[in-house]
Structure formats: structure tokens, C-alpha cells
């Protein structure tokens, strides 16, 4: 059932992409193929595959578990918040918040999670920024650090 749903929506998506791909035209012909043929070929093959799956989805043992789904959505939200706040708050604060939230989501108890979150924020920052030379955003700390 879910496979059918996915395949059907993928088919629609392919159709939309095909319409977009139709517009790919080079102002000059550099090669006999051009930029349009290959994506269209892929899209048509994908549509054929989706059609097959709509007709014969096969067996799937997965069932939708509401509790698991809610947790997955929460997890995605936490990750998104982490990504969006990464530059604004800076690595240390955003990492501490995100790891704390994720820790709780993965059935950790609050206090140990908080401790590990703070440690991870600070230690990983020093590891990456000083030892491995990966520049990370400072965010709110920017004001304190003279550079």
C-alpha cells in the first residue's frame, strides 16, 4: 500500500520534472545530444519503474506505528532546528541544545543528557576548530572573541 502511494506520487513528480526538463535548451548546439535528452531518458525509465510498482508493489512487512512516527517527526524537527540555528547561535550553543534534545528523544535521562550535551558542545568544538582546523561558526560568542 505504502509502496503504491510512493510510486504514484513519484510518477507525478516525474511528470512535473519532465515538464521542467522539456525547457532545457542550449542556445547553441555543442553536441548532438544536448542537455535535454539524458534527463528525459532517466525520467521516462523512472516513470516506467514507478508504474510497475503501482501495479505490482510486492510485499512489505512495514506497518505504520503512530508512536514511532511521532518520534521520527520530532527528531526531524530537532535536526531542522539544529541546522537553522547552527550559524545563528554558533556551534557550541546549538550543539548543546540539539544533543540534549536528541539524547532525550533516544530515551536518555535528563541530567546525564544535559551533562553529555554540554561536554559534546565544548569538546567537539575544540576538537574540530583547534585540532582539526575545521572552521565552525561562533555565533553568539563572536562578540567575546577578538580576532
Amino acid at each position, binding site marked *: 500500500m*505504502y*509502496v503504491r502511494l*510512493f510510486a504514484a506520487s513519484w510518477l507525478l513528480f516525474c511528470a512535473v*520534472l519532465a515538464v521542467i*526538463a522539456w525547457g*532545457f*535548451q*542550449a542556445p547553441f548546439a*555543442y*553536441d*548532438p*545530444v*544536448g*542537455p535535454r535528452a*539524458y*534527463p528525459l531518458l*532517466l525520467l521516462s525509465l*523512472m516513470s516506467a*519503474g*514507478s508504474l510497475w*510498482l503501482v501495479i*505490482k508493489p*510486492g510485499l*512489505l512487512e*512495514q506497518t505504520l*506505528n503512530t508512536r*514511532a512516527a511521532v*518520534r*521520527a517527526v520530532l*527528531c*526531524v524537527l530537532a*535536526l*531542522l532546528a*539544529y*541546522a*537553522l540555528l*547552527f*550559524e545563528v547561535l554558533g*556551534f557550541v550553543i546549538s*550543539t548543546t541544545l*540539539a*544533543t540534549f534534545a*536528541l*539524547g*532525550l*528523544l*533516544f*530515551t*536518555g535521562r535528563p541530567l*546525564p*543528557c544535559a551533562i*553529555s*550535551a554540554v561536554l*559534546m558542545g565544548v569538546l*567537539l568544538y575544540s576538537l574540530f576548530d583547534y585540532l*582539526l*582546523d*575545521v*572552521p*565552525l561558526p561562533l555565533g553568539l560568542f563572536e562578540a567575546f572573541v577578538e580576532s
Partner: protein
Amino acid sequence: METLNFLMQGFEVATRPENLLVALFGAFVGTIVGLLPGLGPINGVALLLPLAFALGLSPETALILLAAVYLGCEYGGRISAILLNVPGDAAAVMTTLDGYPLARQGKAGIALSLSAVSSFIGSMIATCGVVLFAPILANWAVAFGPAEYFVLMIFAIACLGGMVGDKPVKTLMAALIGLALATVGVDSTTGVYRFTFGSVSLSDGIQFVIVVIGFFSVSEVLLMLEKTHNGQKAVKASGRLLFNFKEFCFTFWTMVRSAVAGFVIGVLPGAGATIASAMTYMTEKRMAGPNGKFGDGDLRGLAAPEAANNASACGSLIPMLTLGVPGSGTTAVMIGALTLYNITPGPLLFEQQPDVVWGLIASLFIGNVILLVMNIPLVGLFARMLSVPNWVLVPAITVISMVGVYAVHSTTFDLVLMIGLGVFGYILRKLDFPLSALILGFVLGELMEDNLRRALSISAGDLNILWGSPISLCLWALTALMLALPGLRWWRSRRAAQLANA
């Protein structure tokens, strides 16, 4: 003779202090990543790839690091398989069948040490195979023109569909999605923007690191939400810690046979360690007949898959190095790593970058010795890693993934894109689409289009060039065979069922 000279040159590269250090580090990290349930070689390589790039490692050092991680994962997967009955990576599924019963019988120490030696023998035999066959294949591959390359890549994708077996349509779909993702960005021949939706960040395509980390790390985090295996306790290794000579002799030929088989399977594009270990296990079981205690702790049932999965990991480096076509998901990631360094893998690599190729091959030998030495005494330490709770592990994986992606372009857009791809990957995995096919498609995508268009430019648009030469005809025939395989298997199983009913 020439090969030997090159190999010596390779050893010179591989024994440079920084490369030795990197191999040691990679082997250690690889073993840990391998033994953590859910994290496999692709994740290990994906997590370290941006780091290697950000650290400014030279290409050969970076490749040595990734190869050490790859091998290390194949070593590490068995530890959790034996002690927890949870395979650390997909290829270790067969190891659980006999490894865990052995551990339950108080023979965990024997099982761990014997499987380490099997892994060692498997990789060593396969590495010798790489030394022997890679240069030959590379010489041969010079004859490949763009048309042959294009057909070869089609063959690689067909192989995936034919070998992974029970869901060929989904596998091919996943590969196609990967190919389609690779078309995003500016078209290199004409400068036309494709599927960028007006976004500047997408104009040079979706970065490889983002795809890998999104599809593998982020979706893994989401999958881990469901299985909390906290309730399970590792079996304590007690009693004799090392196998004895008799046990070694008993399993020796099993190891050699499985290593050779694993190597051959590894060389085939598309078929990876998982298939190799399953096939050799079945073969050994059939060969042993009723005398074997397969499933209740037969040492041969432990040695076979372990030798095979390591051998196939090494074997899959051959198509990667000589043809530039990956043999497994992990080597696909490694090809991506090479392209980040502006090195195009392929037959010319042996002439133009002998340091990279032979340094890598020599480092396989060294990495193996390091892993064997590390794995036998340190197994207790590694086993303790299994007790790291998920609420520490998962956030740590998340942070490292974020940093890895951020290090490429330093934009928030990439982070959000990574999460988007991760969610998409999670849905695909829930629906049983194999993601390794997707990543293979993504890596091959640009190469495939380039070769197709180059071939058609040569022939001025005449499609006949695609089946004009004996090599490409042969590859088309093999492709057809591979595509027919699932149908054939389905037909045979149906007939067997009919015979059974009659």
C-alpha cells in the same frame, strides 16, 4: 617484475609516518564504526570523508584512511555479531548464525580470535589478487572508449538489479533516482542550468558529501529511533581466548575457499560483501553435509562469511581503481572522494598516479596486519564500546555529520538539504529501496552522461556506436543476462514449488 617494483614503490608511500598513522587511526575508527549496530562501512567512510578533505590530507593519504576504515568495518562487524547476535553491518548477518551460538557455549574468545584470523586471511588473499589482476585489467581497460564505458556502467547497474535479487525493480529505481540526482546543476557541456529551481546553492550540483551523509547518517539516525536494543546484554568473553592449532587447521581450507570466492564476487560490479558472505556460508554448509553443526556453532560457519566479506571488500577495489566503476556502495563513496581531489579513477590512474594506486594497495597489506594485531588483544576494549548508550552515540553521530557537511561550503542551505535528503532516504529505506544502489547511481551519473554524450559526439549522433565494438556487444549480452536473472530465479522457484505440490 614491473608489478613488484611498483609494489615496492607503494610500500614506500604507505610506510611514510603520516600514512602509517592515518592507517592506524582509520583501522581503529573503522573497527568501532563496524561494530556499532546500524553503522556500516558506508557510514564510516562518509563520516571521515569530509574530515579528510577539511584536514587537507594529500590524496593518497586520504584514500589510505578511507581504505583502512573500510577494512576495519569488515573486521568490526563480527564483534557485535558474535557477542550480541546483532550484526554490526549488513555483511555480518551470516556471522551471527554460528558466532552467537559459539559465544553462548562459552567459546566467545575462540570465536572472536578465529574470525579475526579468517578476516585477515580473507583480506590478504584478496589483496594479493588485487596486485595480480588490477594491472592486467587496467592495461585492458585502456581499450575502452566512451561508448564502452557507457555500456559498462549500464552493466554495473544491471548487476545490482540482478544480484540483489528479490527486489530488482526497486533496486533499479533506486539507481535511477541516484542518476537523476546527479543531473542537478549546471550542465558541463552547454552551461544550461538543470533542476536548480533558481537556487544559487544548487547551481554546481548537489555536493557528494551532502548526499552521502544525508542518505546514510541522517536516515540511520531516524531508523535508530525505532530499535532500542538497550535490553540486550553482550555475552562475556571467558575461557580460552585464543583458538588452538587444531581448530585453525580445521577451518583453514574453508577460509581459503571462501576468500577466493569472496574476491571474485567482490570484483563483479554491484555485488558486495553481503552477497559474498551469504554465498560462501551456503556453499560450506552444503559441502559439510550432515557432519556440520551449522547454525549451532560450527567454526567453519564462522570462518567462511568472515573470510568472504573481507575478501570481497578488497576485491571491490579492483573495478574502482582500474575502471573507475565502483563495485560496492562503499567504493562508490571512495570514487566520490577521489573526484573531490580532481582525480578521475580509471585505467590511466595506474600510469598517472602510481603513488596513489600502489600506495593504497600496499596500505591494504599494512592495514591488515595492524587490524589483526589490534583486534586480537583489544577485543575487550572494542566489546566495551557496545555498551555506549544510544543517547550519547546518536547525538555524537549527528554532530559529526553536521560538521562534515558544514565544512564543505559553510552554508545553512547545505545543512537543510542534508536533512531533506535524509528524510527522503529514510522513507526509501522504510519502503525497502536499497540505498547503496542509489549512491552508486549518483556517483556514476555524471560519468555516464559524459560518456554517452562524448560517444555520440564522436559518431555525430549515430546511436550505432553504442553497440559497434565487440567489447560493448559482450557487455550488452552480460547486461541482458543480469536483467534476466531475477526472472529466471522466479521461474525456477515457481517450478520447484509446482513440483513439490505435484
